[in-house]
């Protein structure tokens, strides 16, 4: 209790930051507050006097506003919607909010955070008393309209929520059944292989890997190199030629193929994070990611669920850059107890099929080198440069490629 009312929807913002890959800053949270304060994105109704007034917030409008502010890419939309739905459901069940708050609240000895910077979803607590208004209709009026008052510019209006679905919350509020209630999904302990499990952070990885963007000079330059042109003037006393700036263009495609089934399931989270970082570093246009199980065979899959096959020949044709780097992420059978001849033969056939088109292949093996001994991985490491998924291994890959 006692949280400042400015923390409107902070719970949602906090969850989006922690549970999605959206990189949101406080500035973006304040943007939402600014929008709320000024009724931006709020549906309007025309009053009897012919003037427009802010109407009751509907969930769809709130969702739209939050998406407009925070959903930086449509690929996060499904997760965004899921978290938004969970949050709205929680607003309707104040008891869950209290429990979530207790878990998230800092220890008592810690200093009280300043207004607007508190990490807990305090706003929701204030929704409780408002929610119990018997005359309240469903909806999300963020302004103080129901009380007949209009929010001033300096005041963030309070939220109150639909009480039509809070039967179980009533029980909890009376101290009953609290122990038996199913914990909410957000309260569960996260899986141990989170995206924070990378041996180095994405910023350092990007730093190491920025050299993967390979350029070549283009002959059809159109931009004058003023400095070089003036230099010739200094040397000769007259301009005998115009110097042109060398044009740069990407020449390499980074083809990532990921083994994401069987023993590799345990590595999915960080592999996903790694792939994302690589693609952000080299650019989405110049990279692609496909999936397989154990070995590629005749097809690769465009989606992690293996529902969209693509023929190997077609996959190669789609990469129209002069150079192609193949980056394989697989344990190469290192988790098994012995070498698998089938696996080695299939990989051999795959490499034979693609070798003429691929400039270089690097294999990232999440299992330590010691585990490769006597397994397929050891034989496969002779077919492609194989590195361990350690900081040293990951930082070596650009070096390997650079020295082509």
């Amino acid at each position, binding site marked *: 209790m006692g949280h400042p009312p400015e923390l409107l929807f902070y719970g949602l913002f906090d969850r989006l930051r922690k549970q999605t890959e959206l990189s949101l800053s406080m500035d973006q949270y304040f943007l939402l507050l600014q929008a709320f304060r000024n009724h*931006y994105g709020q549906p309007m109704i025309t009053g009897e006097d012919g003037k427009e007034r802010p109407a009751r917030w509907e969930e769809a409008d709130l969702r739209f506003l939050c998406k*407009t*502010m925070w959903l*930086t890419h449509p690929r996060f939309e499904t997760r965004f919607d899921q978290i938004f739905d969970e949050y709205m459901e929680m607003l309707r069940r104040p008891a869950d909010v209290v429990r979530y708050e207790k878990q998230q609240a800092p220890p008592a000895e810690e200093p009280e955070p300043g207004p607007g910077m508190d990490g807990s979803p305090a706003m929701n607590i204030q929704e409780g008393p408002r929610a119990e208004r018997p005359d309240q209709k469903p909806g999300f009026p963020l302004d103080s309209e129901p009380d007949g008052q209009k929010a001033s510019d300096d005041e963030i209006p309070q939220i109150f929520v639909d009480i039509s679905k809070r039967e179980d919350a009533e029980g909890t509020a009376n101290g009953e059944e609290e122990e038996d209630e199913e914990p909410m999904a957000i309260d569960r302990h996260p899986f141990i292989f989170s995206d924070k499990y990378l041996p180095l952070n994405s910023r350092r990885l990007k730093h190491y890997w920025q050299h993967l963007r390979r350029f070549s000079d283009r002959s059809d330059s159109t*931009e004058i190199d*003023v400095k070089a042109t003036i230099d010739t003037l200094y040397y000769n006393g007259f301009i005998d030629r115009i110097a042109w700036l060398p044009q740069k263009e990407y020449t390499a495609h980074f083809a990532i193929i990921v083994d994401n089934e069987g023993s590799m399931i345990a590595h999915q989270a960080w592999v996903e994070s790694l792939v994302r970082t690589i693609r952000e570093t080299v650019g989405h246009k110049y990279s692609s990611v496909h999936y397989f199980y154990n070995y590629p065979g005749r097809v690769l899959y*465009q989606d992690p669920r293996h529902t969209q096959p693509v023929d190997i020949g077609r996959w190669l044709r789609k990469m129209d850059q002069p150079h192609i780097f193949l980056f394989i992420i697989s344990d190469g059978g290192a988790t098994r107890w012995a070498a698998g001849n089938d696996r080695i033969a299939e990989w051999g056939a795959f490499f034979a099929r693609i070798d003429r088109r691929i400039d270089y292949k690097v294999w990232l093996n999440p299992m330590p080198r010691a585990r490769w001994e006597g397994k397929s991985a050891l034989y496969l490491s002779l077919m492609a440069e194989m590195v361990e998924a350690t900081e040293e291994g990951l930082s070596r890959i650009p070096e390997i490629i650079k020295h082509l």
Partner: protein
Amino acid sequence: MIKENPYRKYTGAPLREFNPDAGLDAYIPSDGLKKAVEIARLLQRPLLLRGEPGSGKTRLAEALAYELYGDKYRDYYFEWHIKSTTKARDGLYTFDHLGRLHDVQAFKKKKITKYRRFGPLGAAFRKSTPETPAIVLIDEIDKADIDFPNDLLRELEQQRFDIPETGEAGQEKGIRAAYPPIVIITSNDEKELPNAFLRRCIFHYLEFPGEDTLVDIARQKLRSLPNNPELEEDIVRGLVRKFEAKHKEMRHDPNVDKVPSTSELLDWLQVVAFYAFHKDPESQNKIRIDEDRIVFDDGSELPYPGVILKSFDDYRRTVGEI
């Protein structure tokens, strides 16, 4: 925060129909898009539009400018089409170093400011006022180098920039916008944009339009054609449905190279209409509705597939299926 004065809401109404006087095709924004434009304007943030190519991202800025300023919209509307070689400074200003060098050698005296030329963003900064906010289109920002968006951060946030060559630099002498221009940025998602840039933007994703909107767009497009072919309402709808079915099928096929967009539909309609009214009976390919199905005289299911299908593989696969 200074506000637009007077604030004129974006309704999409003036260009709901083809405007022959202004030479502008109809532009029919969705409610979501209109709302996103409002939010971006009110918060004075750039609006980043994403969506399939041909979904109408680029035309929004022009349509908005036309709605705000009518026939004079060109005075307040600035387009910046990004290329792979574009640098952030190009949008603000360029300085004619060679011209100045030449003039100095020829003992020509000119004010140093004569050598600077404002780019689209720089010109918009100079033009924009609370009464007449300028509109800037930064088209296909993802084409530029990865550092390009970050290079614009300071200028977009502070609404000012420096020209060191002319001494127009610093808080007092730098070029400053009296009011932030309305910035509309489009991206085809070819490259990831930096987080620092994203956090300063408002976002909207343009979905492929639904049937009714497509029919609306198609009708307006046909109206804008020089010979103005009068296709009946149910024929237009039938053609749109045929296209939509193809679009849906291709969208869910992972082996498709290029999913057709709204612009391909409009091209296709133009071709279909052209041959439907062709004077030469040999070339004519009339269209009629038969039990809710569109039927072409030449018996083809999808005539002129080359207008819709832009890759050889897609073409071969579709034509083979017919």
